[in-house]
Every structure is written in C-alpha cells, then in structure tokens.
C-alpha cells in the first residue's frame, strides 16, 4: 500500500471504524481520552491485531516499542499520524 499524507480527521475516522468493526469496542466508549486497555478492554495480545489493522489500513508497520507511550486513544491517533505524515 502506498503511503499518502492523510488528515487527522480521516485517520481518526478510520481507526474508530476498525475498533468498532474488528475489535468489538462499543461506539459510545470511543473518545480521545479513553484508556485503550481499560476503557476499551483491549488486552496486550489485542495490540498484535492492532498492528495488523494499522498495516492494512494505513500501510505502516508498527513494532511493540511504538506502543510504549500509548495509553489513550488520543496517543494512538497521534502515533499513527506521526508515522504516516
């Protein structure tokens, strides 16, 4: 997949879509300050699936280390935005 600059809005929209669609996260739970592990009930193994979802949606490959400072959904949006642009 070719990397293309993507605006923040589209990134957020895509991420929110796959969180609901593939990770069974409740739509109402999705807000930028939501804690990925606690609020969204994603366990550490789910991060492996997040890496795959990010790769297929955005064409960037994340590593385990990339998640070190990712606590909230906002952090996750920031990470993807930084990786893409």
């Amino acid at each position: 997949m070719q990397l293309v600059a993507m605006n923040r809005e589209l990134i957020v929209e895509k991420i929110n879509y796959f969180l609901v669609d593939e990770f069974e996260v409740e739509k109402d739970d999705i807000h930028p300050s939501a804690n990925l592990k606690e609020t969204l009930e994603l366990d550490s193994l789910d991060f492996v699936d997040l890496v795959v979802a990010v790769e297929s949606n955005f064409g960037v490959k994340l590593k385990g280390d990339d998640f070190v400072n990712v606590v909230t959904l906002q952090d996750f949006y920031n990470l993807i935005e930084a990786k893409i642009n």
Partner: protein
Amino acid sequence: MEKQPKKKYALVTGGSRGIGRAICIQLAKDSGYSILINYNHNEAAALETLKEVENAGTKGEILKFDVANAESVQKTFDGWFQKNENAVIEVVINNAGINKDGLFVWMKSEDWNSVLNTSLNGFYNVTNYLMQQMLVNKYGRIINMVSVSGLKGTAGQVNYSAAKGAVVGATKALAQEIAKRNITVNAVAPGFINSDMTAGLDEKELKKMIPVNRFGEAEEVAHLVSFLASKNASYITGEVININGGIYS
C-alpha cells in the same frame, strides 16, 4: 476480491534425520498439513525425508537454515513468505538440537555456547519470528523437543541439560502468555531413543536402567508429537511430557 483460504503448514526444525524425520512422516500421515522440513547441513537426508512425506500422500518442502543464526532464520522466512503469501504456519516443532558432551570441568566455551545457541536461541529465533502470525491466526501448536537431561540433568551433558531445561521454562511461560489465542505450547522429553545422537551408546548396558528394558524408537516419539500437534490436544498446554520407558518421571 474474495479471500483465498490459507495454505496451512507444519514446520519441523532439524527435520532431516532421526526424531525430526519421524515427526515429519507422522505429521504427513496424520495431520493434513503441508510439511516444511528444515535442515542445516544434510540436504540428501532432507530430500529423503521429503520423499517419505510425499509417499505418505502429503506435500512437503525442504528449507535450509541454521536455527542458531537469527539473521539466517529471518532472511529465509522473509523470502519464503514472499513466495508463499497465502501460507500460515500453524504448527512449529522446535526439534533442531546438537550435543557436545564432555565433563564440565574441561568444557570449552564454544561447546557450551553452540549447544545453547541451537536449542535455546534456536527456539527463540524460529518461534519469535512466527509468533505474530500465529497470534493473528488465533490458532497454533508449538512443540519443543527437550530431553530427560533437561529435567533430571545428565552428567557429561551440563550444556545440553542447561539448554533443554531452559526451553522447559520457556515452554511453561509462553504457554501462559498465548493460551487465550488457542495456541498451545508443550514440551516433549524423550529418554534414550535410537537415533544418530545415541548411536555411540551401549544399549545393552544402558537398557538395564530402563524399566521398559530397551531404547525407544523415533516413531514412538513422533506419535506423541503428532497428537500434541492435533486439534484433539487443545486443552493440553504448558506441559512437559516424558517419553522415556519409565527411566524418570
């Protein structure tokens, strides 16, 4: 575009000879997987195993790499997955191992390191590479070939006992990490089994210590491994299963 079904493989490291070969053949008979036969030096033996796998009615492939060499493992798999985009390796049998026996007091660091590099680091290099795919696939079987030496310790095999014992610990820990994803991790600990590795041993003398009163056969080990690699073994994980004629339990 419609998603193609994945082509499923079982990988056996050190699959060209001995117990590894018997496992390849048994999996070919029982499992329905295509068999990936890893070897390091002996291509002729690997091809012989492949022939027997094909005779059992299954597809197979030989794959050369040294499990102890992280770069070689990575490059080989990168290339292989590029050619086989639709492949998933569901079963990994970490069987490759070497022994460099001798009294510890005289043991050279290279004999210590090479045995640990193959058994312990080989487990890391191969399993770690395939882990992400297995987790995403949400199914897998990892079977680590250890040894009675790794459980009870064997004089003259401090390096081998250390390496196999370490893999036992890794087996139990990894089993807990990934059980939720339907991936089981078990170890099989053979005793004296007829193979190249035991060819120099005095069976007549040693069998006196074995309750069953004989060395085991590679095929007997392979049946156990084949069961653990099957769906029927879904609730067995983090276990070390002895197969040693009663010599140690």
